[in-house]
């Protein structure tokens, strides 16, 4: 089973990159493989994996783990499973400080308090002594973010950070992530299935489908001049937010690919309205449409029919 194939991903300093994809698109596996967090039966082959000036590919598991938590922070979807229910928030916050920065005792405690203030935790002094189950979902996610930024990371990877939260809480957490990024100047990789979250958070978007990068580009390129039929399908599947008259939704037919038996050619071909014989035979090469906009679709071939994106009503 190949969960991810031939993916190239670059994140510049201080940039927020959004990775969009549905279940089975390989977006989470991609991140876990970068960090060496995949289960033992996984194999990762890559030409290069670099972080800042270090080569992730050449690092041992131990070095990677050092990097993780100090210079790379992770925020997961479900904070309840990533926080240890047996330890107080203070213990969990000071652990990375002790391991990576050698802070102990009162100093570590003071830093932990600072961190809770940075994530806008109400009454942080009392909160330090509490256990994860005493927090609401939104507050737990704040704790997760505090742990992620504890050692001043250069990159934060947020995997569906707000999927389990309510809309009003989601807005709070997104605001927090945005402000922290401005303050700290970290790069962020935001993995989500929610195009709404993407459009309010990111400058650059990577659209994944069936383990490959279908299309990547700037926010405007992806939303207003997308070139991959899957991106079209995604955008047409969501109802128009503001129009007065109701437009029918245009769903993508069929189901996401079964990654145990992935299709031979383009993974999207079986569901694509514009599929051609070549799509079923081989995957499309990457086409560069602009310095930022790249797409993998046979429709960019000169011999292919000219199909253009038009979102009705715009």
């Amino acid at each position, binding site marked *: 089973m190949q969960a991810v194939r031939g993916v190239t991903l670059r994140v510049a300093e201080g940039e927020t990159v959004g990775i969009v994809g549905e279940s089975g698109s390989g977006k989470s596996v991609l991140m876990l493989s970068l960090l060496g967090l995949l289960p033992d039966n996984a194999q990762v082959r890559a030409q290069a994996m670099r972080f800042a000036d270090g080569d992730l590919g050449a690092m041992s598991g131990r070095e990677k783990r050092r990097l993780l938590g100090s210079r790379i922070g992770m925020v997961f979807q479900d904070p309840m499973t990533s926080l240890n229910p047996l330890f107080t928030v203070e213990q969990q916050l000071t652990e990375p400080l002790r391991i990576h920065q050698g802070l102990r005792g009162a100093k570590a405690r003071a830093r932990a308090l600072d961190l809770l203030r940075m994530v806008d935790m109400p009454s942080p002094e009392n909160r330090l002594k509490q256990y994860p189950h005493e927090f609401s979902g939104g507050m737990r996610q704040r704790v997760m973010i505090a742990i992620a930024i504890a050692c001043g990371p250069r990159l934060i990877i947020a995997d569906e950070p707000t999927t389990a939260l309510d809309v009003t809480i989601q807005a709070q957490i997104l605001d927090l992530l945005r402000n922290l990024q401005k303050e700290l100047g970290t790069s962020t990789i935001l993995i989500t299935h929610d195009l709404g979250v993407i459009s309010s958070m990111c400058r650059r978007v990577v659209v994944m489908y069936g383990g490959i990068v279908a299309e990547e580009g700037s926010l405007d390129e992806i939303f207003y001049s997308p070139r991959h039929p899957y991106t079209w399908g995604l955008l047409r599947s969501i109802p128009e937010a503001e129009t007065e008259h109701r437009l029918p939704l245009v769903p993508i*037919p*069929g*189901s996401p690919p*079964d990654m*145990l*038996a992935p299709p*031979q*050619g383009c993974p999207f*071909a*079986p*569901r694509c309205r*514009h*599929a*051609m*014989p*070549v*799509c*079923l*035979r*081989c*995957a499309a*090469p990457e086409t560069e449409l602009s310095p930022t906009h790249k797409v993998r679709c*046979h429709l960019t*071939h*000169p*011999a*292919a*029919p000219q199909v253009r994106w038009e979102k009705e009503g715009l």
Partner: protein
Amino acid sequence: MHIDPEAYANLPAEDFAPLGDADRENEQIARPSTTYWQDVWARFRRDPLAMAGLCVLILVALAAIFGPMLSPFSYEDVDFLNGDMGPSSAHWFGTDRLGRDIFVRVLYGARISLTVGVVAAVINLVIGVLYGGIAGFIGRRVDMVLMRIVDILIGLPSLLYIILIMMALGSSIQSIVLALCFTSWIGTARVVRSEVMMLKSSEYALAARLTGASDFDILLHHLIPNCMGPIIVSTAFLIPSAIFSEAFLAFLGIGIQVPMASWGTLANEAIAALSSRPYQMFFPVAAICVTMFSLNFIGDGLRDALDPRLKK
């Protein structure tokens, strides 16, 4: 699948003709259909220990059923001239003090042990599933009362009521089974109760309720089939424990009486001659061990096969 850029640029135009909808089938299911039990069997088959256990158990069962018929000896034939003989071609496992063939007696013991195990398991299953199912499904006060009864039963010292039952009913297979089943269904009942409690609020149980189905209908059609996995596992471990209890009781002299032979009785008889004729002890004990191991391996295999989550 990398494609040469030059070859790609020169692909023929027909490769780029749009496909009609007829060429694609969106609701196709690629994988062949397998039922839950087919999956379970496939997983079970991959477990070598469990398969070995199953084979050994089948051999023991076949020997127990047909062995005594094929042997020239019977379990109660006394032959004083050939007492205390070691294993030989005539008497494979030797003879005991009274000259009875130990091989046949061990096979006969297998009959008793397996019968006790299977009957106890079936009784457990019926009582445990009904009791646990009712307690879990109705819940609240009924559950309170039923579970407190269980707590009281489990507090009784088992040897006490087993001896009382044996004294009242005499020692026969029936009374042994009854004594063994007196409280052993409680484990199954508890498993079923907690499963049913969890499943009764599942969305498919709600959906069934929405069709107008009665409580009994939901219990029978949805809840019990869905807790078959844990039920089977708890039953699979119950059989060896029932067999072992029977052997233990017989060894203590409470249970099947001579000339009938259970593995425990045989072991008991062999104590007197343990230092001079250890084989008389070895064969029944080996039979108990082999059967216990097989049944426990089967139970482990079933647990892994029925609940793949536990293994990972």
